[in-house]
């Protein structure tokens, strides 16, 4: 068997193992592993194909994945276990706290009962604390409990609040304790610098634009969502446009495409690609290099590579690698992070289903060269939405078909808005008045976009239903068969492949 296939099957089995362990199937995992191995061995004898023996052997990775996930669980559980006692402790703020309404959430790293732990401190809005502040906290540490929705997550976690916090590595919560600042700038200097840069850009947007438009631009360019009003968040959800402000692979791919377009006008294509890649890494670091953004960057880069090289490039292993890396870093994202699942499915939709749909409707490959890219946007939105729909319905209980219309209309403006937004960010570093003028140009676009989001947010056409797992599996099988069929047909008339 070829090395790249060994990698692929091994990774998929490993991921399956992590998933099964997260669902707490414990004993069943061994049975499933054994059964799968047996089935593949039988297939091998039946089809007289040695590949199946390889696959049977690799299925052992299910058990390895399960063990890995279980070990991470144990490691977390063995750390300090809060009993609700009132404690006075010192700790370092390790996140970029985003004030929200009348409170702010601080992730504080500290040492309790000999273990290094992360505690979530919900503090009053003022005074504002920053990354790298050393603080003393006096309050009762409670175990995270599943009540209410996580405010920090852009998308509500499909599991409860406790699981969301466990995913973030939080082992205790303190609500409105006495907090005192001991020292500033005790964090990693480079991270401090990047958070400061990001915060100052968000502040500049706030200085030159009305609050709502500024918040939207911050979300679009930096994935910062702390200033959104609850009404606007709901409108984003109902209109199916939340992904725009979550710094998804889409936003990141725009950043790459735009830099590429700019660079290729005076650089050789290959050099331009390398420079764009360096730019991307810097951008990711600036937005805080949170796991979700790293994922988006890998995804965005993949989308660009896939579109740059037509369909000859097979992104299968790249997608698998991205998933594997994310899960190795934090095994909990696989099952407890809806955002992780959604962005992977959306990417698979864009990479595999979109070309299949293009073939099916006999459209030119790689999008048409017309005045507007509505057809391209529609195809992209549809293929992503078709794949995420069951998860949206399962996790959030609704999926809004209006998102096809809203996305096609809004996406027309987004690339220009993002580019102007970055330009304004650069201007604001030079002069407030220059940025103000830039703001006059970007404001109309933002107004149109927020207007459309609010307008489509009124259409609550959400399909409210629950799906059985069987139905979901059948749904994905049908899509998979469609993709396979179209790609086979495509192989027959491969004159349609772009040279």
């Amino acid at each position: 068997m070829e090395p790249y296939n060994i990698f692929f099957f091994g990774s998929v089995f490993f991921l399956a193992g992590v998933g099964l362990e997260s669902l707490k199937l414990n004993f069943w995992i061994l049975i499933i592993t054994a059964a799968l191995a047996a089935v593949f061995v039988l297939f091998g004898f039946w089809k007289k194909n040695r590949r199946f023996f390889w696959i049977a052997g690799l299925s052992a990775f299910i058990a390895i994945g399960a063990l890995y996930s279980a070990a991470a669980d144990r490691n977390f559980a063995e750390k300090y276990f809060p009993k609700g006692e009132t404690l006075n402790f010192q700790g370092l703020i390790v996140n970029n706290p985003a004030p929200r309404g009348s409170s702010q959430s601080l992730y504080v790293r500290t040492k309790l009962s000999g273990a290094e732990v992360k505690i979530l401190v919900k503090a009053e809005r003022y005074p504002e604390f920053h990354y790298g502040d050393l603080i003393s906290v006096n309050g009762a540490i409670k175990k995270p409990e599943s009540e209410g929705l996580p405010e920090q997550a852009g998308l509500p976690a499909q599991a409860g609040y406790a699981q969301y916090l466990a995913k973030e590595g939080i082992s205790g919560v303190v609500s409105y304790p006495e907090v005192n600042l001991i020292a500033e700038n005790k964090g990693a200097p480079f991270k401090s610098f990047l958070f400061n840069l990001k915060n100052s850009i968000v502040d500049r947007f706030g200085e030159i634009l009305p609050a709502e438009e500024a918040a939207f631009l911050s979300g679009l360019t930096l994935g910062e969502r702390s200033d959104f009003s609850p009404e606007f968040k709901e409108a984003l959800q109902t209109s199916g446009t939340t992904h725009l402000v979550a710094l998804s692979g889409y936003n990141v791919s725009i950043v790459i495409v735009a830099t590429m377009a700019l660079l290729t006008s005076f650089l050789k294509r290959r050099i331009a690609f390398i420079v764009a890649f360096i730019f991307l890494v810097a951008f990711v670091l600036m937005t805080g290099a949170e796991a979700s953004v790293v994922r988006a960057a890998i995804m965005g880069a993949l989308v660009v590579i896939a579109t740059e090289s037509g369909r000859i490039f097979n992104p299968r292993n790249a997608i698998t690698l991205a998933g594997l890396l994310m899960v190795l870093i934090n095994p909990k994202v696989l099952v407890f992070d809806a955002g992780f699942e959604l962005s992977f499915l959306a990417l698979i939709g864009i990479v595999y289903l979109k070309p299949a749909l293009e073939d099916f409707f006999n459209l030119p490959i790689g999008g048409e060269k017309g005045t507007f890219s509505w057809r391209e946007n529609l195809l992209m939105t549809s293929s992503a939405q078709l794949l995420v729909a069951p998860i949206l319905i399962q996790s959030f209980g609704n999926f809004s078909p209006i998102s096809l219309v809203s996305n096609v209309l809004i996406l027309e403006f987004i690339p220009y808005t993002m580019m102007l937004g970055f330009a304004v960010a650069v201007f604001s570093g030079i002069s407030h008045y220059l940025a103000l003028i830039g703001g006059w140009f970007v404001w109309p676009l933002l107004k149109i976009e927020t207007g459309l989001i609010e307008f489509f947010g009124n259409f609550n056409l959400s399909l409210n239903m629950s799906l059985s797992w069987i139905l979901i599996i059948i749904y994905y099988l049908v899509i998979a068969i469609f993709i396979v069929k179209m790609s086979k047909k495509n192989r027959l008339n491969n004159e349609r492949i772009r040279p």
Partner: protein
Amino acid sequence: MKEFVRKLIENNFGKIVFWLALFFILDILVFRQIGADVLEKDKLSLYFLPVGQGDSELLSLPGGVKVLVDGGPPDALVLKNLDKILSPRDRYIDIVALSHAELDHFGGLIEVLKRYRVGVFIWNGVPKNTSAAKGLMKMIKDKNISLISLAAGDAILYGISDIKVLWPPENTVASGESLNETALVFGLESKNTRALFTGDMGEKTENKIMADLANGVDILKVGHHGSKFSSSASFLEAIRPKAAVIEVGKNSYGHPTQEVLNRLADVGARIFRTDRDGLIKFEVADDILRFFVIK
């Protein structure tokens, strides 16, 4: 480079036409807005902002100077209302005034100072030792905004507008007396209209400033969100407001109290409430006082 530009135009002709058309339409909208601003400049407009349980008023004086009085509690409501009132290009507020350093009056101001350029910050000069109040003072310092304490007898004159500070007396310090009774109280006279801004003052202060208000008041910002310890019958009888605005939201104090509502009705004042009416605007142009209720 020339080649690049030529290609860019050739390949994107349709797009370029579309964007030019779009910007043309937006231009017209912008100039209409500027035209409207010029017409607005001659009017006196008083806005009472619905910021929940807290105070916030915006005065737009003839000539275009803007005075923001208080900013409500710490949430984005004051920003949302300012965005409704001001044009999107307007990022400057001439004067921000704080009646007294309590959270339901200054909480929203910190974000306002962060996002708007502010000419001068005026207040009663009585500090409060809370972390939020310190946050406000730090923001004023960081943003290099001049901070001025005013006291009874001080005045701000601008064109035909006259803002007279009635309370507190000079050199007021936070003593045993409640902070509410140190609130900056001022009257505005402009375009033959008199308005009184009271902060959270109670009966005690009312009795002391009554003599200065012998000419009566057209528009009254009702003291302390309609608390029964403010807006005494004798005070209302003396100033006889035509319109009374109660700035109030969800609260556990029972504001506005029935007693105050009755006393206001007794002197024939028309009562407005930010919790029920939303954004309330009074406008004086051509010697006519109009009011608008903007939901």
